[in-house]
């Protein structure tokens, strides 16, 4: 059989188109087992555009108050306790003023402010550095502002830990189940596995059921949770009426945790002579 160049090119061209087009068609036609219409958000879920928390440090008076808040979070989410800082996994924790707000401290500030433990958690930033660096999109920004972590995708590269300026992320150097009391594991929430990074999730599983985050619930009003995009929300009214600061705002990540530091302690300002 003989074939001239023109015929050969025709056949080659047609088979290329058939091959590429056929593959594309097959991929396009293949559907998942679920219809998109089969899934829906919870009807009773709390919805918002930009969740945030205002922390009133005046109302977190004692260490017990703070411990109750952190314990509530860590017990619900099966956060292990290895009793050493190297392996520590923290979703919500405390730091001194100097370490929480570096550059803001000075030597004449009130003594109690210097020593007071400040409650810290993931800031669920508007421009989260951790999300930008994640190579697998395991961490991503949800529509309601929560910086979410998909444990199924995390490969444990720890880029996000290096990127986060707030130290909000912890790596599971050890199997977290060895750091949990088997009697006290919450059977409704998964643990994590060795080799993934975890952090505060703003209690997305509680928001879906229509309840506020555990830390807010346990704080006796010291933590106010709400939608920062809703001008009528309680948190927006607090931010409009009181002076608040954020952690490292100069970095441009736009953190969504606000701190009321203690402006109401001195109702009468001493007169300047």
């Amino acid at each position, binding site marked *: 059989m003989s074939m001239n160049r023109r015929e050969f090119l025709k056949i080659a061209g047609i088979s290329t188109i058939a091959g590429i087009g056929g593959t594309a068609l097959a991929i396009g036609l293949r559907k998942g*087992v*679920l219809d998109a219409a*089969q899934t829906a*958000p919870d009807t009773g*879920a709390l919805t918002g555009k930009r969740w945030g928390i205002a922390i009133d440090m005046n109302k977190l008076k004692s260490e017990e108050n703070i411990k109750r808040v952190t314990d509530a979070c860590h017990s619900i989410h099966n956060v292990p306790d290895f009793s050493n800082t190297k392996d520590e996994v923290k979703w919500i924790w405390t730091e001194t003023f100097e370490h929480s707000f570096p550059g803001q401290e000075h030597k004449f500030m009130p003594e109690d402010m210097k020593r007071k433990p400040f409650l810290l958690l993931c800031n669920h930033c508007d421009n989260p550095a951790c999300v930008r660096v994640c190579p697998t999109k395991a961490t991503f920004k949800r529509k309601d502002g929560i910086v979410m972590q998909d444990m*199924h995708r995390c490969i444990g590269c720890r880029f996000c830990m290096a990127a986060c300026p707030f130290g909000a992320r912890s790596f599971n150097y050890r199997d977290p189940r060895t750091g949990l009391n088997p009697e006290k594991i919450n*059977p*409704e929430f*998964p643990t994590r596995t060795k080799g993934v990074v975890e952090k505060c999730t703003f209690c997305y599983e509680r928001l*879906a059921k229509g309840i506020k985050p555990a830390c807010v619930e346990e704080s006796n009003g010291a933590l106010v949770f709400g939608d920062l995009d809703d001008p009528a929300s309680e948190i927006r009214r607090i931010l409009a009426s009181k002076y608040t600061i954020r952690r490292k705002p100069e970095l441009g990540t736009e953190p969504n945790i606000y701190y009321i530091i203690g402006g109401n302690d001195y109702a009468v300002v001493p007169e300047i002579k």
Partner: protein
Amino acid sequence: MKIYDGGKIFVGLIIFVGLVTSPFFFNRGKSNIVRDPKAAQMMQSMGLQCVEPKAFMLPNHMQLLDEWRDSVVRKGNRLYKASDGKNYVMSFQNTCMNCHSDKNESCNACHNNLAIKHTCDGCHNSIAVKPYCWDCHIAPKEKKS
């Protein structure tokens, strides 16, 4: 063309092929998963029912779980409308494990086969899959059998 020691070579080849394929012949006609229709009826009469029919769930539960995960974690959609119109909360640990709370019991009720151990893991082991779901999701407590 003459093959030296042709007889020995061919007899050897036939024995080799026979040995290699013997597992297929031994297991022919035996299914690893045998459904007991009586048990299925019993489950239904007790009001125990999976989110989808068993004929769908047995071969497809992993795809279903995969899409549930994407829907819940990535999209935040947690409600699943089953093909019979009922709504379920998509949660492996809270919805699935509510019924499949014991890897021994729940499988014994439907599967009836003496060749394998009647457990979730018995089936997973017999087809050589090792799901690592339970590295994080808290596994149902198994009764020692």
